[in-house]
């Protein structure tokens, strides 16, 4: 894979990820507005587990749809690092691949420990 192709892939991933999350969040907001501001959950509450989000979406609850949008958004930078590390692997650039994996490892550790500010 050429350097230019990798950059275009990353740029496209970021762009379409952004569009997708904006569309999902926007749909949730529009649905909530259509239902008179009702998100389908008590005020300030939204589903955080995958099962909770899935059930909420099946029932067309705006809060669940917005939650899915946030999950997609938060996942974009992580997906971008994964994509880059895969690109480095294909290009046999092992140093940068390892650096990317280590950054992912730190992010995963932070999420697991729940110690973020």
């Amino acid at each position, binding site marked *: 894979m050429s350097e230019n192709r990798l950059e275009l892939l990353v740029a496209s991933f970021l762009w379409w990820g952004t569009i997708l999350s904006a569309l999902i969040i*926007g749909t949730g907001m529009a649905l909530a507005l259509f239902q008179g501001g009702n998100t389908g959950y008590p005020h300030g509450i939204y589903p955080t587990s995958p099962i909770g989000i899935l059930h909420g979406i099946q029932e067309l609850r705006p809060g669940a749809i917005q*939650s899915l949008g946030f999950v997609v*958004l*938060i996942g974009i930078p992580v997906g971008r690092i994964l994509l880059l590390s895969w690109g480095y692997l294909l290009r046999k650039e092992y140093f940068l691949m390892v650096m990317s994996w280590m950054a992912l490892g730190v992010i995963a550790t932070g999420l697991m420990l729940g110690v973020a*500010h």
Partner: protein
Amino acid sequence: MLLFIISIFAGFIGALLGLGGGIVITPVTTLFLGVGIHEAIGASIVAVIATSCSSASAYVHDNVANIRIASFLEFATTTGALIGALLASGAPAKLLTIIYGLFLLYSAYGMFQRRKQEIDRDVIPHPLATRLGMCGKYYDRALDKTIDYNVTGLEEGFGIMFGAGLMSGLLGIGSGALKVLGMDAAMKLPMKVSTATSNLMMGATAAVSAGYFFSKGLLQPSLAGPIVLGVFLGARLGSMAMTRIQSSTLRKIFVPILAITALQMLYKGLHL
């Protein structure tokens, strides 16, 4: 609607200067809209990711953001952020905030002195930077020419990025200003490459905190929704503007913002 418009501005500034956008969102939502600090920080963190993704797509596409430098430095910022978060409860926050404020103020002065400088010339590339293919080039629309640049000061840059991450974890700030300064002053990258690469990296650092805030139920959808949509739009506009203005102009915009951030930090530190 007001929130949406403010968010467009936040995204614009964040994308233009590599600061993320939280610098606008948190004070405006807490001071003027009466939002609680936890909800404001949660919304601010997703705004940083939105700014990062929206602007970085354009910057990577246009070769302004350097993905190799980002990959190299991301490990330093994420590690710093994690250690900072682990140490946060026992750290002397007052002292650290004041030191950070003074450092930013000093950096603002240093950048002010170089305000007319377009790009650093005669930079001798670091051997590792050459080996990893970090030196690059981009087409500068404002100057209507291709800018070739070298990368130096990898050790200093890596250290500053670790410090930026550490401050981020310790003090709960984005520390985008420090990231831009590290790349601009220590690694001698062109200002545009520094801000664009900072934007690219910032999403990954913020993802750690955002995941935590989301899972703890601290993201208020009614607040974060319009902010994210506004920031997406603003960041896209900011990235379009950034490629069309000169680096020296970017510095002139960056210096007062940096000084304001420094004074905010000093004020916060003195009143903790």
